């Protein structure tokens, strides 16, 4: 039977939890024994999404960030969710170099990085409701 597993993590939107969130996702995916490169790619993408939730979604105020992670065979689905500010224009946000916070020296490359390290990235967002980023990746190394 195909290997499946899932988990959900909620944590306070504090920047000290970024490293924690990365490790939780990698520890979960490590069950599949991927390569270092695959896990590094996923961690980078998760990091960008979690940072966005904390600094753009909650603008460093209190809030809960939720991560859902699902494994089905070689396929990994990761959802990162905040109930913060949301965005009115997701297409604009996706554009490379676009940032709404140039004063914080943001690069505007977060979504571009997620897209390049994952197979697919979906963004669902509503102003003043929050944002959900879903990312998918198939592990190529498994079963070798």
């Amino acid at each position: 039977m195909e290997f499946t597993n899932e988990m959900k993590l909620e944590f306070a939107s504090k920047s000290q939890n970024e490293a924690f969130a990365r490790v939780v996702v990698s520890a979960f995916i490590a069950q599949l024994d991927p390569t270092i490169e695959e896990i590094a790619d996923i961690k980078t993408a998760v990091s960008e999404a979690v940072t966005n939730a904390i600094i753009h979604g909650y603008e460093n105020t209190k809030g809960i960030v939720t991560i859902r992670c699902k494994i089905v065979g070689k396929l990994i689905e990761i959802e990162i969710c905040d109930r913060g500010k949301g965005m009115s224009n997701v297409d604009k946000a996706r554009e490379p170099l676009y940032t709404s916070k140039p004063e914080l020296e943001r690069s505007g490359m977060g979504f571009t990085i997620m897209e390049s390290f994952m197979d697919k990235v979906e963004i669902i967002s509503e102003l003043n409701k929050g944002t959900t980023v879903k990312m998918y990746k198939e592990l190529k190394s498994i079963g070798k």
Partner: protein
Amino acid sequence: MGEIKRFLRDDGMIKVSRSLKETYQKVYCVKEKLSKKLQREPTLDEISKELEIDKEEITMALEAGYNPEYLYDTIHQ
């Protein structure tokens, strides 16, 4: 040429399980060294600074070290 590149790339595919076990061994060496030097158990920060590895990463390696089934059995069951 493409063939060689592919070979090199495949060969360079280091699995996380192996890398975590290596980290685990390094953590234990540094822990011993610092215990002698400080005359007490080192904290995770102290080990993390010495190794230049995140504290959180170290906790993952600790698990892979003491629990060899972690990472392995799950996928093969």
